[in-house]
Every structure is written in C-alpha cells, then in structure tokens.
C-alpha cells in the first residue's frame, strides 16, 4: 500500500465529498459523455475549465490527479500516435518514408488525448471523493427498479461492497506474506520466467488459504447477526439529496447547455 493511485478514497472535507453519491455517480457519467460530445476546441475547452474547477473544489491535491494519469500515460500516447499516423485529410503537413502526417490527424490526436485524460480525471474524482460503501449504496439504489423484473440488486450490491471492502485487506495480506517469504530468502524480482512463476507459489497458497478462512469467518459473523438478504432490511444512513446536489446538477446542466451551444454555433 505504498503507492496510492487510481481508485482510492481520500477522506478530505469538501463540498463534493458531502454530496449524495447517487448525484455524483450520475453526473460523473454525464460529464464523461459531455467530454466525448464536445466536438470543437471551444466546447472541449469549456469542459476542461469545468473539470479543473471541480478538481479544485474537491480539495484533493492536484498531484493525486496527475498520479492517476501516470499508470496510463503510455496508452494515451499510443492512441495519439496512432491517430497522427492513420488519419488522412486535406492538409498534408509533412511526410517521410511511408508516413504522412496531416493537420487533421494532429487535431484528432490532441482531442483524443485530452478526452482520455478528462475521463481519468473525472472518474478519479468520483472515487477520490466517495467512500466505496457509499458508491455501492448508490449503485444499489439506482438499480433498484430492476428488482421489479426479478433481479436481486441487493445481493449484487452486497457482493460488490464485500469485494471492495476486502481489496485493501488483501493487498496488506499479500505484502505481509511477500515480506515473510523474502525474509526466508525468496527471490521474486529476478531469474528466468519459470523460476519467477515458481516464486509465486509460496505467496499464492497462503493467500488462498487465508482468503477462504476469511470468507468463512465473514459468513459466520454475518449469520450470527441474522443477515438474511435484502428483504425487509432498512438502512442506518439513508441517502438524502440536499441543496448541494441541486447545485451540482445545475452547474452540470449549464455546462451541457454551454457545450451544445458552442458545438452548434462555433
């Protein structure tokens, strides 16, 4: 757990942190769609400004957002390069060997790169500002109409909550077992492919065994507290929309309107 990156909740105290997770989830999806339907530099610029403002409001240090980009910068670069090479247009800028670079290609590449970066920033903003349990709660509530057609959304959400809850535990456990085996001279970073695969066994087996043990313990603990699925279950913290959600929705609505106008008239 040395490097916190993409997908980690950061408990700061901000306007966005306090908003309803349902609103945040829907607006995140909305914002991403908006970013992908901004067809010219003006509308995309508006989305960029909006996202940067939201990032500042979230009180999460900008360095965290940049860090979330670190793991995929190569992918962004690759997509951009492919666009530069493959997109054909009317304005040939230069060519060498079999590669022809058009102005349209460069423009397209810049658009794609900015959109992917925005996608990462926006979705990191959701996970940075929303506790995982609140997020699954929101998903359960948003999916609850599906209950009517016989899909057990509660079970789905519970499974997700448990899975998310145990990710940090599992990482911690893996680190501990790795350290313990390293203390006995296990070498995991060098050697042939075969020896590296073999080196995984002393980590994988204890991890599997402890996961099964944990699962059993958790099932017992849930049964002892009379867990019997979602039927008739009430909530301790029910989700309530507030003025914050109105503000969020309104500003997102204004953004969308602005983007459409800029798309059409410029």
């Amino acid at each position: 757990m040395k490097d916190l990156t993409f997908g980690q909740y950061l408990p700061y105290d901000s306007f966005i942190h306090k908003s309803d997770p349902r609103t945040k989830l829907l607006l995140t999806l909305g914002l991403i769609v908006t970013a992908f339907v901004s067809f010219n530099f003006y509308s995309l610029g508006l989305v960029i400004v909006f996202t940067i403002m939201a990032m500042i409001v979230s009180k999460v240090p900008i360095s965290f957002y940049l860090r979330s980009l670190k793991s995929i910068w190569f992918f962004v670069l690759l997509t951009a390069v492919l666009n530069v090479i493959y997109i054909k247009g009317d304005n040939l800028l230069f060519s060498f060997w079999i590669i022809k670079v058009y102005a349209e290609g460069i423009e397209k590449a810049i658009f794609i790169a900015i959109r992917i970066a925005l996608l990462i920033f926006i979705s990191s903003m959701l996970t940075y500002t929303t506790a995982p349990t609140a997020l699954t709660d929101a998903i359960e509530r948003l999916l609850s109409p599906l209950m009517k057609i016989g899909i057990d959304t509660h079970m789905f959400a519970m499974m997700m909550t448990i899975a998310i809850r145990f990710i940090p535990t599992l990482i911690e456990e893996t680190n501990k077992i790795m350290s313990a085996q390293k203390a006995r001279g296990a070498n995991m970073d060098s050697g042939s492919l075969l020896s590296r695969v073999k080196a995984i066994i002393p980590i994988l087996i204890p991890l599997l065994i402890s996961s099964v043990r944990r699962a059993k313990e958790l099932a017992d603990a849930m049964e002892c507290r009379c867990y019997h699925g979602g039927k008739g279950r009430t909530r301790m913290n029910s989700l309530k929309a507030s003025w914050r959600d109105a503000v969020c929705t309104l500003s997102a609505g204004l953004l969308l309107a602005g983007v459409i106008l800029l798309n059409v008239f410029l």
Partner: protein
Amino acid sequence: MILQTENLNYVYSEKTPFEKTAVKNVNIGIGENDFIGLIGHTGSGKSTLVQHLNGLLKPTSGKIYFEGKNIFDKDYDLNALRFKVGLVFQYPEYQLFDETVEKDIAFGPRNMGLSEEEISQRVEEAAHIVGLKPELLSKSPFDLSGGEKRRAAIAGVIAMRPRVLILDEPTAGLDPVGRNRILEMLKNYRQEHNTTVILVSHSMEDVAQVADKALVMNKGEVFMYDTVEKVFSHGEELEKIGLNVPYVTKIFAKLRANGVYVPTDVFTLDKAEKVLLKLLKREGKE
C-alpha cells in the same frame, strides 16, 4: 556491535492524508550474543523497526549497519543479509505453504543454495530445536495444531542458522503452556548456539523471563534501552506509557518500600519463590 541504527526514521504513505510516522529517530546498538526484549504498546512501531534490521523496509531517512557495513549501500547483498538476520513475522503460521512440514522448513536453506545433504541436516536440527516430533515432518503443515504450526514456522527461520534471530510476538495467541515452551526454547537456543536474539512482545512477563536487555518503544521513539533490571525499576514511568511491570516486581517494590530487604531483580514467580523461601528461613533462624 553486530547491528546498529543511526537516526532511523520511517514514514508510511508519505505525502498522503494517511501519512504516519511509525519510527522516529531511533539510534540503537545491538551487541553480539545479546538477548533483547523489544516492548511497547500496540502501534508503537516495533514491527516496523524490526523489518528494517534485515532490510525488508528501506528507511525514509537514517542508516542501518550490520557488522559495521551500511546495508543500503549500492553493492550490499541484501538477500545474503536475510539469511544472517532471520526474521520470524507475527503469526508466522500463515506463511506456511509447502506440501510437507519438512519441505516448508527447507525453503530458507534451499534459497541459500545449500546441498541436499546439508539441507536435510539443518531441517532435522531446526525441528529438534523447536521441539517438533520427527514424525510430524512428513505431514502437511495445514494438518498441525496452532502451536505446532507456529513452531514449524519458527524452525523455517532457525534452519537458516541466522546470526541474529528476530521474533515478532512469537507467543501471541498461545496458551500459557505453548508460550512457556517457546520462551524456554529461545533461551536454550541462544545459549547453545551463541546467537543474538531480539524478542518483540508487549508482555513484560515474557521479556522478564528470558531477556537480558529491554528496549522500550513509545510512539515510534525509543523510550528506554537498558538492562531488564534497570528498566523495570522505572515502574511508574512505564505505567505512564501504558506498560505494566510484572506483578511480582511491583509487590517486591512495595516490600522494599516497607523496609523488607529484598533484591530488585525479581521479575518471575520462580525467582520470587526462591527469594521468599530464603527470607523465611533466615527469619526462622533469628
């Protein structure tokens, strides 16, 4: 000095909201053949500190020397160090993985690249030291009892014949019999094999029973580092940081305060019994 630390600091999740200084400015020297009890409240940084001593954790700042050499120098062989400074983790039974107890104990020696003959000799010896019956060696480690698993895991480190043996709470979660067996085993092992032992614990009784020196940690810092006798004579200060000296030591301190002449180095029931019997005999004669 076999191990030394210099201004050791360690910070978890640096530069995030979860930032936590676990080890703060630690300067200690560990002598050859010392038996050190490392005590401290939960979260005082004991486990973090010992993971530096075999180079598993790299300090945020500060240095660690093994036999006078800086272990984080570029050309220092950290892997070889891990065989010389053996570390048994907290709840080591969860690291067992191989088909048989024998193979599991052999994991360390095999990583050292020893010959099969040497390996089996060491496995046998280590199993004997920790008191595992030979017939258990061919069983699956997952079929052992909790206490046996713990001893098998300790044997896995002892089989590397480390110069320094560090054990992180080896008695946690064991019953008094299991606890006693491990402590006595460590005491004998250290005497017979001339090794340095560091025992991490938050039980003063454990430390009193086996260690010569006590290193007390509080909130990541070294609070006291001296002989067990001297450390235990500061009962009140220890209580302030949430640690209790053994009950017998407390009672004997009260006796002394009331004018009964008793020595200051009574930490265990055995010793108390001997001292009191002697005292009664003397009074009988007078």
